[in-house]
């Protein structure tokens, strides 16, 4: 694979000469570099003990912030979770709390 400009090296300080041609991006999923967790005003809290691993919460996360590993959900990706509360409502077992951020 040829060497090309990476998104991590593109920022609002670099000169125009260092932008990619036509503002293209050559890597997958570079949005991960954006910490949308900072947008959160409420926070979901996962109670692993109450969780039955039904996984109904995971597909409803608009922010891909409920990682599933080996068929089980794991801790929220708080770097990206925007705290919308959909998972809190999706959980049939009360295993997700939804709290104010303090």
């Amino acid at each position: 694979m040829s060497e090309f400009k990476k998104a991590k090296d593109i920022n609002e300080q670099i000169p125009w000469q260092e932008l990619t041609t036509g503002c293209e991006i050559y890597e997958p999923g570079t949005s991960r570099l954006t910490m949308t967790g900072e947008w959160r005003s409420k926070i979901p809290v996962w109670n692993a003990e109450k969780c039955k691993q039904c996984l109904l919460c995971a597909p409803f996360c608009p922010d891909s912030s409920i990682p599933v590993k080996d068929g089980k959900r794991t801790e929220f990706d708080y770097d990206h979770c925007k705290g919308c509360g959909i998972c809190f409502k999706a959980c049939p077992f009360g295993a997700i709390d939804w709290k104010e951020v303090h």
Partner: protein
Amino acid sequence: MAYNLKEQLSKEERFEAGHRLCAGCGAGIVCRAMMRAVEPEDKAVICNATGCLEVSSFQYPFTAWHDSYIHTAFENTSATASGVEAAYNVMKRKGKIPAERNVKILAIGGDGGTYDIGFQSLSGALERGHDFTYFCYDNNAYMNTGTQRSSATPRFASATTTPAGVESVGKKQAQKDLTQIVVSHGSPYVAQTTLIGNLKDFHEKAHKAIYTQGATFVNVLCPCPRGWQYPAEDLIKICKLAVDTCVWPLYEVENGEYRLTYEPKKKLPVEEFMSLQGRFKHCFKPGNEWTIEAAQQYVDKKWEELLAKCK
């Protein structure tokens, strides 16, 4: 193969975290599920109409997409997809892409980019029969510009260009039935779905659409908490009510054959769907009761028509 949520969620995520959609936006759920419907060994090219999703999922230098992605403009997504498909065909023919490599061409746009400004290019691409799947995330108004009415906005919804007021009960016209219009193009697979349950309905339709040869179409009702004025966390409930009131019936049309994929055990009054949303608040004011009756009559009529087609 039977739908298994655990297996689906074990797939590598193809719509990445860190996009800039509003908290609780249905479009993020749609994109993730859409990409799960592409087999892991296949690549995709996503053609995206200008709109909320586009400005949020590829803001330089951050793309949420793991697959190749192109945004050109608002009204031309189907035409752009036509070009990508033509390129795919010719590159395969000329041996520039190995015969065994499979790339699925997906187009996605909101109701503005699909029902309205993008309708001409959609119709053209459907008629020509390019091998691609168009996903419409229908959030019932032009949300990117701030909830102006679209032809997908239901009657009586208050939008910023059809506000409720002393002389107004919101939008005057019923929602354009785009799904039916697409069926009329002779598309080999057309479906309506939304975000309910374990997303089985969505997944099966998306998968069938993507893996049916030809121009296929999936219309997804996709709530917008800001535009519909409901608490973001209630998305699943809203979707479920849309289906159980028959405001948004779930069905598919395969080579012209209609099939209902979900029939509510008890058809709920449309009022229950409307009452959760601020955009219909004025319908519940004294003197406006007729709007709810009219909405109910319209839903009933459309539902009966659909049932007749599904028999």
